[in-house]
């Protein structure tokens, strides 16, 4: 069942266009707050509703994905405002993690792992990803961070397609597309801290998509594939923003990027291996 032209346009090009347009407009008006997280969330949500991937009014757990991503972008924006204290940023992040976990984990009997275990795991992922990636976003300029986040989300979309839901794969593609838009923008607008505030959005989008995909999958894709994808950009925590002429920093950066790519490759490889064989349709 291939993707149609409208799937590609609405699911891939629309989020890029919306994200780029909003970042561009806010930059033109010189807003004193960072519009990038909300622009990215708007691009993702535009694609989700244009393709009718979720209903406007949520009635089950995975319907809350767009709202969770919007909340994450809002938290990311507020947490990075100049007057917000670190303690407030932490509290907002923890509340986001707990609230989105409550909404996205399905409320049905027989979950494996159990519902509470999944909620705790989801919340841990969001917190562990949000704060470190946020510090990276504040230190680095350029396309490295959005590129790895785009790559991880793209790998996640492949895992979701293999796990048996093209709907969730399309949501993953839309999420990847907005970070590809951020990657492109960062190439033209090399500014330290460009990705400020986007870490919670990445954390919720990546972890949320993997969670709902697995919760609704009847495939043999292993749990490791779902768990590894969101963690891929974390090796960047060890990247230094310093430069040196001997090339040591660059070699280290290349190694860490390689580790990040390998994490995505491993996750996708495990999923492919699990679903290999059998008839196609």
């Amino acid at each position, binding site marked *: *069942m291939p993707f149609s032209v409208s799937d590609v346009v609405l699911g891939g090009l629309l989020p890029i266009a919306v994200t780029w347009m909003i970042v561009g407009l806010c930059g033109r008006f010189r807003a004193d707050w960072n519009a990038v997280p909300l622009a990215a969330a708007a691009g993702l949500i535009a694609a989700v509703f244009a393709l009718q991937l979720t209903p406007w009014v949520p009635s089950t757990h995975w319907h809350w994905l767009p709202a969770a991503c919007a909340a994450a972008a809002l938290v990311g924006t507020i947490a990075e405002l100049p007057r917000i204290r670190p303690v407030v940023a932490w509290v907002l992040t923890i509340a986001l993690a707990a609230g989105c976990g409550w909404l996205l984990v*399905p*409320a049905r009997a027989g979950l494996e792992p159990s519902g*509470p275990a999944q909620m*705790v795991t989801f919340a841990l992922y969001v917190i562990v990803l949000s704060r470190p990636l946020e510090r990276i976003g504040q230190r680095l300029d350029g396309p490295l961070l959005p590129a790895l986040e785009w790559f991880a989300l793209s790998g996640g979309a492949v895992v979701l397609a293999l796990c048996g*839901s093209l709907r969730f794969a399309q949501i993953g593609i839309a999420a990847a597309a907005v970070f590809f838009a951020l990657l492109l923008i960062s190439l033209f607008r090399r500014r330290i801290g460009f990705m400020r505030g986007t870490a919670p959005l990445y954390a919720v989008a990546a972890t949320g998509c993997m969670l709902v995909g697995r919760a609704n999958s009847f495939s043999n894709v292993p749990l490791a594939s779902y768990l590894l994808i969101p963690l891929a950009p974390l090796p960047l925590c060890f990247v230094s923003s310093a430069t040196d002429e001997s090339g040591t920093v660059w070699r280290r950066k290349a190694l860490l990027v390689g580790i990040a790519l390998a994490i995505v490759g491993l996750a996708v490889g495990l999923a492919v291996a699990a679903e290999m064989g*059998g008839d196609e349709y």
Partner: protein
Amino acid sequence: MRRFFGLLTLAVFMTVGCGEKPIDESGDASAPAGADDSATDADGKPFAVTPENTTIKFVGIHVGDKPDPRSGEFKQVTGTIMVDGDQVTAIDIDIDTTSVSTDIEKLTNHLKSPDFFDVNQFPTAKFESTSIDYDDSETATVTGNLTLHGETKEVSFPATITASEDSVNLKSEFTIDRTEFGMTFGTDNVAPEVSLTVSVEG
């Protein structure tokens, strides 16, 4: 400060981890019964619908020049058919949607996903007849409420029916539009119309 964050984080996790979300019963219909009230309200003697005597098959096709039909069936079907003399007066069928099955495992898994039947949220489907109008001794138009994917719509379909006190033979082929039942995903690739074949041989 670190101790505060640690305690706060621990408190949140304990609250989330210890709390149980109420089980979502929205898609979980009551257990299929062999003698549903609506069917047994009609005149006649109940005939039990079982997976051994009843098959419900469906065929979907792809949009475009290559329809590549894909067929499947529901393996777990229960219910009651009321028989009065040589006529069927009511049909009440419960379908376990988690029993959907095709020849291709990946296709079966895809059909169970939220892309189509979303069996986790809607584990059952149901048909309850409201009228059975005989055209002659063996053909009738069956009208009733089909509940599928959480949506209930009235459907009418022709059926060939022969019945007696101890047996029922019913065969019907008809088409539904899956989008009317909220299964709207992928209509660019998979046609909205789905052909259904219901067969009771008992």
